[in-house]
């Protein structure tokens, strides 16, 4: 927790660098005033004094505790203000909150990751964690789709992953642009080209709700069981503590019980894709 005496008081963090990932997405490199420990897939509340806060899943390695990277898409009032911040600004961090990816369950297995849009932010953190434990993994495959080549974030990540033993990364775009000679089509089309031993594999899906829905259906069709599919749900997390009820999804508080669930845990809930 940021402060043991007051769970609502943010930890101060200096903005060291702002990286422009795409026209609407920036990564904020933050130096917290003290060590910040989180598990991959957990989320934080990032705040700007006098403006407000919003939930984000860190995109940096959980093994780096003196620096935190948070990727922010400009979608509303708070994120608009965040996008105007420059190096040296001070931000606030509350958390980490919730249940992240159970990476110890991935040991000895193949991990197939399907991501879309800004969903690559939590996945990037997961990829760092998996790279850290790669000797205990069979294989890691990333399939990622963005709307256009320009909208793709962390572009250097793909060539880096393809240079790491046991890692494969594929990209597609919904709409091509001048200079793009890669695949065109939605993210799920990439699943047709991967080779996985499904019985010894887990799948992770993170992205916009529509991609999560179609991605999960395709994974089930491939033969994945519902307890082999991990979904990172984003449901208007607000307090982060399971108190305010903004993030309720059926019987779950996404901020406390999630944001990572297996499909088996939540498939009975009609609200999961909304």
């Amino acid at each position, binding site marked *: 927790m940021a402060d043991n005496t007051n769970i609502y008081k943010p930890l101060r963090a200096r903005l060291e660098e702002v990286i422009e990932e795409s026209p609407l997405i920036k990564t904020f490199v933050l130096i917290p005033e003290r060590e910040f420990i989180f598990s991959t897939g957990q989320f934080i509340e990032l705040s700007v004094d006098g403006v407000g806060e919003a939930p984000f899943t860190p995109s940096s390695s959980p093994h780096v505790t003196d620096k935190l990277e948070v990727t922010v898409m400009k979608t509303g009032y708070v994120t608009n203000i965040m996008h105007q911040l420059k190096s040296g600004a001070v931000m606030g961090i509350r958390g980490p909150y919730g249940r992240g990816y159970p990476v110890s369950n991935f040991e000895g297995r193949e991990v197939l990751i399907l991501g879309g849009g800004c969903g690559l932010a939590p996945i990037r953190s997961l990829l760092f964690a998996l790279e850290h434990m790669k000797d205990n993994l069979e294989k890691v495959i990333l399939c990622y789709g963005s709307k256009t080549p320009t909208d793709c974030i962390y572009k250097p990540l793909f060539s880096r992953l393809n240079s790491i033993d046991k890692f494969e990364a594929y990209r597609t775009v919904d709409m091509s642009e001048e200079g793009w000679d890669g695949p*065109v*089509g939605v993210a799920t*089309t990439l699943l047709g080209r991967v080779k996985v031993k499904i019985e010894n594999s887990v799948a992770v899906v993170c992205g916009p709700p529509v991609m999560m829905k179609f991605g999960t*259906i395709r994974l089930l069709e491939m033969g994945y069981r519902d307890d082999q599919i991990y979904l990172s749900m984003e449901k208007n997390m607000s307090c982060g503590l399971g108190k305010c009820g903004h993030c309720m999804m059926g019987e779950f508080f996404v901020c406390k019980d999630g944001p990572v669930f297996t499909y088996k845990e939540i498939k009975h809930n009609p609200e999961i894709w909304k």
Partner: protein
Amino acid sequence: MEITDFEQIKFFEKYTGEQLQKIASVSSVKEFKVKEIIFEQYDELTEIYVLLQGSLSLGISLPKDKRIHLGTIEEGQLFSWSAIFPPYISTAWVMAVTPAKVIAIDARKLNAEIEKDCDFGFKTMSKIAQTISHRLSDTRFQLMNQLNV
């Protein structure tokens, strides 16, 4: 074409040797150069294809000679399924992005085999249905993306 050529391709798994022989007897290999149009939208089709090598672009035509690229066909995938069903008119265009080699299957002869042999027909129609189902699902996904749903 030889049966061994088909056995390497995922699309043809589950067929018996005898069934692969039937497909081989009505198939040929065709090659296309970069940017060559394999067929246009609204063309009458007589062959269905399975991509052996290369990469193809699939899209639809718009007024004023505009083209939208909707997807990429990867090695091992079936395309030109409209050749099997009346009115045998293509719903999209397909163009070679790289030099491409395809198996071209005579659709009328294939249909005749489907009618004669129920097991062969069921396997073939299941594979074609799966291709169409994926295409439909991907199109809905893309539509929802474009509508920002």
